[in-house]
């Protein structure tokens, strides 16, 4: 008698996270640079922990681009004054309908960071965290364990 084939499955009991997310090896924090005042600016000093993973130039490029974006957000100029005056005249109720210039630039920054992660950092086993999630205090770079070694059984 033929036994109806009981399908037996090898249950992979890893959680999906295990499979997809490598362990975090360490985190590097790029602190703020206050030499120009209270504007949001990050230090461009290349941390030694990243030396094996990343080019100094690429790192600097990322940080400088971020600094420029934040400078754009905080720029004092005609447009921001206009926004401020308009807001004042409407007793600040205009912010209920309108997105501030700063928020628009923050979205731009988030897109830039995502882009950088996909193109530059993820292939090297690194992850940039958007500084807004850390209260604009630090740029956090997570270093993942290097898994490029061996797949033999």
């Amino acid at each position, binding site marked *: 008698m033929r036994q109806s084939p*009981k399908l*037996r*499955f*090898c*249950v*992979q*009991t*890893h*959680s*999906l*996270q*295990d*499979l*997809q*997310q*490598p*362990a*975090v090896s360490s985190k590097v*924090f790029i602190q703020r640079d*206050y*030499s*120009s*005042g*209270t504007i949001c600016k990050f230090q461009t000093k290349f941390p030694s922990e990243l030396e094996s993973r990343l080019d100094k130039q690429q790192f600097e490029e990322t940080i400088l681009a971020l600094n420029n974006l934040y400078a754009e*957000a*905080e*720029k*004092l100029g005609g447009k*921001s004054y206009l*926004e*401020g005056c308009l807001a*004042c005249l409407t*007793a*600040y109720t205009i912010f*209920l309908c309108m997105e*501030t*210039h*700063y928020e628009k630039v923050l*979205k731009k920054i*988030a*897109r830039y*960071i*995502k882009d950088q*992660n996909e193109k530059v*950092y*993820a292939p090297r086993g690194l992850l940039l*965290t*958007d500084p*807004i*999630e*850390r*209260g*604009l*205090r*630090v740029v956090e770079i997570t270093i*993942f364990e290097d*898994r490029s070694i*061996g*797949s033999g*059984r």
Partner: protein
Amino acid sequence: MMKNCEYQQIDPRALSVSPSSAQNHAGKSAQRPRRKWEVFPGKNRFFCDGRIILARQSGVLPLTLGLIVVTCGLFFAFDCPFLVEHLTVFIPVIGGVLFVFVVISLLRTSFTDPGILPRATPDEAADIEKQIDTSGSSTYRPPPRTKEILINQQVVKLKYCFTCKTFRPPRTSHCSLCDNCVERFDHHCPWVGNCVGKRNYRFFYSFIISLSFLTSFIFGCVITHITLRSQASKSLVQAIQESPGSVVELVICFFSIWSILGLSGFHTYLVASNLTTNEDIKGSWSSKRAAEESGNPYSYNSIITNCCATLCGPMPPSLIDRRGFLPLDEPIPAPSASEMELPPFVAKNDAHMCTQSTKDVLERVVHSFDFHGLCPPGTPKTSPLGPEVSCTAAAPSPQTLPSASSSLQHARQLVPAPCPPFSRSSKKEMDSLHSINPAFRLASPSPSLSRTTLILGDAPDLGFIPLP
């Protein structure tokens, strides 16, 4: 045929539980996603599900509001009818506009986040501690730490905040009443029931300026009213008897006008020189130094620029993200978890069932798919990775907003009510998340997770069959 792996019959219960909390808490109220304001460490109170923030002791705010409303009420009731008749209809109009402006500014000042700095994550704090050489000190509280930096060629000392575990940015101060570090800290105003800092200074300033105008206006109108009436009735006492409310207004306005006008003048000076009350009181930049500039390194050395920068500058965002959702880091609730041999969601210390090589194979396979499609957003993670990094995408994935991803998912499930006045951050965040990462659009975790767990086309000796 049957290879060396451990074979067991699929337990459908196991599969439905493993994507666990993300699915479960749609049903279970005990696991409802919590917003960040609910676990906020400072001494603040939140209303309207995190939209409104107040200091713990909102003490005198009701009194302030009460005084303003009562005075204006009496004004409209007693003085306006007479003045409209005898002077012009614009008097109540102007009074009304000023009143509205005052109340809105006051509420804005009280209910806005003044610029609270979120506390450092444990990783950050550890990193800073490492950098500060304690040289083997065994005391619990190391000596106060300061860091000196140069701002515009001026030496500024940054202090370390023991509560928030960071070095405070310049001009930031820790408010002991609210137990928060506040950027560009001016002072804690009991009348307003909140700290005055970077984000609400302009509201505070417009409040006191408009209040000065309102008080002066009412004072002037009342005086005019009483004068006209006493001329008409030839007796001051009679005039007062006819309009008793005016006397109350007179008394209130008389006593408040000195303090309000004084405060307005003082803050106008601060705005023009780009100082905070805190700095002025401490005399941080009192010009003992060079005569050509004030010692203040933040001043633009032009009154107009200082004013514009302080009052009309760009509005910085709130850094504490009150309405964001916490990443779910509860352990798997199901009782079958232990039987399943499913390791808990801990990043580093998992007990692996199969070998590393198998995992690599699986990884390769998963990578070969468009993993955005398979990645279940917002699946819980415990804290070894820090509370923020909770994404489960393939290694190393460009998920820059992992905590927000769970918030997005839960937000979609919960459909938050439309957002009244002051903070639209939640809706905006959701919109921005939608636009930022298309992975987040992909909906429920469980089907995709169960699918991915079992889709392994080219694994040589593992026969996996995708479940429907």
